[in-house]
């Protein structure tokens, strides 16, 4: 049999003996990548929106928005206030996590008033008659550098009385 070419070790390169020919690390890495892809399919990394409800005798607040997001994503949060009883002056109070590290692109329809109270953002919508719905949209873009978890609660008030709160946490992936 002819000599093997230079730097070719038949035991290693022909019979594939040696740690670098062990296929287990390669399979493990591929499995890990596959696991991340499957987790992505199951919305672990966002950005599929979900329905969250909070109920009180006077009203129901529905929030339809994603809670898992990634840097740079554009997304929408839709709020639906259903007044079971007459709401004299509906006010939504947003915790700072709603605005931190995100660009707020649009508020539709434009609220009657906007302000701040104790670090929270306040939007005033006015009167909602009993049995009617008020739908409100906010569009955001996540800052590319925004990573981590933030509280993003929203509460519905009527003339200074808290009716209900949706507690949620936003998770931002890089």
């Amino acid at each position: 049999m002819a000599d093997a070419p230079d730097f070719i070790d038949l035991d290693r390169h022909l019979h594939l003996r040696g740690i670098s020919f062990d296929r287990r690390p390669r399979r493990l890495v591929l499995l890990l990548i596959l696991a991340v892809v499957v987790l992505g399919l199951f919305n672990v990394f966002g950005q599929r929106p979900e329905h969250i409800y909070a109920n009180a005798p006077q009203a129901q607040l529905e929030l339809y928005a994603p809670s898992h997001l990634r840097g740079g994503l554009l997304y929408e949060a839709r709020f639906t206030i259903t007044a079971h009883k007459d709401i004299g002056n509906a006010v939504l109070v947003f915790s700072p996590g709603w605005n931190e590290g995100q660009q707020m692109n649009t508020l539709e329809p434009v609220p009657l008033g906007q302000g701040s109270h104790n670090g929270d953002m306040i939007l005033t919508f006015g009167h909602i008659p009993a049995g009617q719905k008020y739908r409100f949209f906010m569009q955001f873009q996540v800052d590319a550098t925004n990573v981590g978890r933030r509280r993003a609660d929203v509460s519905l008030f009527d003339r200074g009385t808290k009716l209900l709160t949706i507690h949620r946490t936003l998770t931002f992936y890089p």
Partner: protein
Amino acid sequence: MDIVLRGIFVFFFLYVIMRVIGRRELSTLEPFDLILLVVLGDAVQQGLTQDDYSLTGAFLAIGTIAVLQVAVSYANFRIPRLRPILDGEPIVVVQDGRPIEKNLKRERLTLEDLAAAARRQNIAKLEDVQWAVLETSGTISFIKKPDA
């Protein structure tokens, strides 16, 4: 700082991907592979620089990848024990005109692939080949028999 960290992550992620997908994929560049390469480049760019259109951002991203590339190649040169991990090792796929089925199967290479690679080097028959070695780059080197 963020763009440098993203550059480091993308570099090592691509490095690992290139090592685990196997040499067969590296050696072929069919039209589909070419399109895939462009799509991959676009996906990587967006993850790397995101909405940063600045020259500084481009400098940081390219600089990070260049420095890491030099560092990896220096480590490869200076530390022989790292070479099999960083670059892989060649694999003998033909010995004395006889294809090594086990090694071909491991690299997802068919006899047709092997024969096509041989033809590209003006070798009509595999029996004329003394050694064929699948190199770490994904190309196959052929050494003909002395009498062939």
